[in-house]
């Protein structure tokens, strides 16, 4: 076994806790998680049964954390993990899993398989088996300030552009404001309209905010790779910036894994509570709506459907908020099958989108979304994750489907009451 | 200690519960009787059913009685204790119940026949009767021989 493989096994060892032990003790191999998985659903290949994807973690648990497993190892029946095992697991742990969390919802004994995939990726990455594209992104983000490299110039240009367009001044690193806005690289590069949209909404609602040039990037490739050291390093940048500025809250943008990274994993990565709160942009918009600070006029007459980002709804608990907002501005809002908590993944979350090796699987998985959209036949799909937005847009185009995709914040801003 | 009258009542209650509890065995017996009666009519084959060979409680007995009813013949045998031979309301179906001298049940049968064998005078007894009558005609009184 190579030194990195040993490092991987040790990382798996570190990850095992009472929940994991109770999950593996409870699994009865019923296979019900298979149908919850978009990759199994679309390929019918039993190797994609979710619980199978965490077999290495199970082996470490059995060998090292159970008395009977230890006895088995002592008499030579133990099952040592090799480098080949890690290699074999790559396609299961990275290529055919978006960590969408549907399996976690259907497991009759309550196993959080998605959590275990996350833990598996700790071992995989430590063993040197993370997808090269994700490692590349990690390097870029570490060296620069975003997984796409150095986006300092880009963000300044986009903010300048938004200021010019909206006539609202946006100041970088402004102390004394309530909110710090962070953005996903996808937004900065592809959907910068969101900056102007937020500026308009916040102005109307009287929310004071800023963007930090030190830490404007919300995404955290460490979470997707599944490496806590990398993830900690990246999240620390934002935490330090926010605490230096003394903001009350950090706004997690329309990005799925960034919400997980910033709000739920971050404090645990740095091992303490934050001095500030983290709120998702849609949560904040819904709160402003409830307070009457978000006023819109007019409605979009298009047939609109909503795509739930897994990490924000199913694994993030933001379910009703976007629908309340959408109903303010959409005249003809229809849901797809399984919408809400059990919505299907866009097909490329959890690092799958960046992973070249997984391209075919990704396309196969999208067929499910395609059928769902075809059934509803919307004019427009609204979502609240820039990466879902990006994936859907490209996949729809590849599949010759002429449906517009939009971000929810942007759409809300479009129908904002013009008070001036 | 329990109140005596109360426990006495309990015993009575239990006895009654036991005595009247049907096991449900009357029904198959009745079906068997019906079939046997058919054979008797068709081919003259007789049949005997031993009521002691299956659990048969007071409740079952009652049910049997209800269906079969009471017929025309009612004979009492006095042979080592009493025996009751009764034709039921269903001609051809007889109840034969043997008791010992103490009046305890010895055996209980249903006979499906034209006449239960036990009612007939048997040849050996007739022979003995022939001898007895001759003795009596020879001047001896029957009285001193009685019970001998």
């Amino acid at each position, binding site marked *: 076994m190579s030194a990195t493989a040993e490092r991987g096994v040790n990382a798996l060892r570190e990850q095992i806790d*009472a929940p994991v032990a109770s999950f593996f*003790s409870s699994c009865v191999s019923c296979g019900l998680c298979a149908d919850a998985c978009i990759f199994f659903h679309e390929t019918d290949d039993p190797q994609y049964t979710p619980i199978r994807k965490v077999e290495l973690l199970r082996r470490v648990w059995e060998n090292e954390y159970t008395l009977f497993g230890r006895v088995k190892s002592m008499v030579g029946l133990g099952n040592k993990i090799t480098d080949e095992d890690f290699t074999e697991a790559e396609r299961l742990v990275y290529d055919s899993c978006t960590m969408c969390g549907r399996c976690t919802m259907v497991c009759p004994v309550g196993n959080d398989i998605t959590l275990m995939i996350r833990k598996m990726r700790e071992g995989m990455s430590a063993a040197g088996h993370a997808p090269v594209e994700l490692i590349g992104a990690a390097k870029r983000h570490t060296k620069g300030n975003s997984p796409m490299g150095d986006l300092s110039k880009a963000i300044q240009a986009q903010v300048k552009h938004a200021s010019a367009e909206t006539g609202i001044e946006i100041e970088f690193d402004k102390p004394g404001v309530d909110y710090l806005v962070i953005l996903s690289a996808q937004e900065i590069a592809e959907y910068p309209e969101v900056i102007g949209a937020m500026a308009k909404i916040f102005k109307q609602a009287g929310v004071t905010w800023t963007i930090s040039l030190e830490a404007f990037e919300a995404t955290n490739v460490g979470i997707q790779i599944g490496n806590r050291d990398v993830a900690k390093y990246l999240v620390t940048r934002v935490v330090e910036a926010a605490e230096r500025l003394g903001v009350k809250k950090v706004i997690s943008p329309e990005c799925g894994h960034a919400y997980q990274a910033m709000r739920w994993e971050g404090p645990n990565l740095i091992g303490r509570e934050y001095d500030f709160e983290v709120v998702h942009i849609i949560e904040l918009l819904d709160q402003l709506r409830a307070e009457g600070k978000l006023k819109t006029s007019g409605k979009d007459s298009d047939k609109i459907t909503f795509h739930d980002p897994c990490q924000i709804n199913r694994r993030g608990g933001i379910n009703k908020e976007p629908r309340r907002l959408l109903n303010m501005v959409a005249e003809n809002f229809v849901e797809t099958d399984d919408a809400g908590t059990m919505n299907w993944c866009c097909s490329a979350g959890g690092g799958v989108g960046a992973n070249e090796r997984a391209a075919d699987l990704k396309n196969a998985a999208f067929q499910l979304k395609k059928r769902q959209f075809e059934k509803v036949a919307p004019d427009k799909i609204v979502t609240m994750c820039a990466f879902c937005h990006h994936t859907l847009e490209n996949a729809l185009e590849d599949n010759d489907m002429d449906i517009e995709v939009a971000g929810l914040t942007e759409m809300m801003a479009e129908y904002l009451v013009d008070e001036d | 200690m329990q109140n005596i009258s109360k426990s006495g009542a309990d015993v009575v209650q239990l006895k009654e519960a036991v005595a009247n509890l049907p096991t449900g065995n009357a029904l198959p017996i009745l079906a068997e009787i019906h079939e046997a009666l058919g054979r008797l009519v068709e081919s003259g084959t007789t049949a005997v059913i031993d009521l002691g060979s299956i659990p048969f409680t007071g409740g079952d007995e009652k049910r049997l009685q209800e269906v079969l009813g009471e017929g025309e013949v009612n004979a009492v045998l006095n042979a080592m204790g009493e025996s009751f031979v009764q034709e039921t309301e269903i001609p051809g179906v007889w109840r034969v119940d043997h008791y010992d001298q103490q009046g305890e049940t010895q055996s209980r049968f249903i006979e499906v026949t034209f006449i239960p064998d036990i009612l007939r005078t048997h040849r050996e007894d007739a022979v003995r009767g022939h001898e007895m009558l001759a003795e009596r005609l020879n001047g001896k009184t029957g009285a001193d021989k009685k019970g001998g």
Partner: protein
Amino acid sequence: MNNPNFDLLMFARGPLFDIALLIFVAGVLIRVVEILVLGRKKDFSKAKGKPVQQGIKTIFTRTFPRPGAIKANPITIVGGYVFHIGFFIAFLLFVPHIALIEELTGLSWPGVGRVIIESSTVLAVIAGLALLYTRWRDPVRRKLATWVDYLVLILSLLPLITGYVAVNKLFGDPTFMMALHILSVDILMIVFPFTKLMHAFTFAMARYYNGSIQGRKGAES
């Protein structure tokens, strides 16, 4: 002179039961302690929902499948339900079993009649055979299965089958069948801590953790 069948019965409910009980109780305790001591790190994220409440709630709510699940896996879900319910009716509501539990623990509750017990047993066995079938024929379950999965399912069915045969005297000497029944239970108890049968205890922990993890985020579970 001995009755070998009775001797086997006495062995099954005597020394072997003691051994089985020892292995079962000690084994389950070891397994549960082993899980609990691993603990989990304090979660520093600020809870949005109510993790403890939702954890407890999920222990119960996860009993019911999500809409549409039955259509995708009818044999596993319906069979699973019928098997579990039938097994527990036969196990927990048959009075001789209650008498056993009362003897062991002092706890007692009313039982039900033979019709319910026996129909439950028959249904549970049929369901168990269906589960065995789908484990063997369905590609997903077949690939997941190890020989232990088959063993455990068969061992769980044996007490039902032998019990039914013994009580109804279907074949074999009833005392011998009763001995086999108790023997099968002894074996089930012995293998219990070493196999997936442990889910009977740990499912509550797993569901609790699942519910509390989701609950912290205010998400459904």
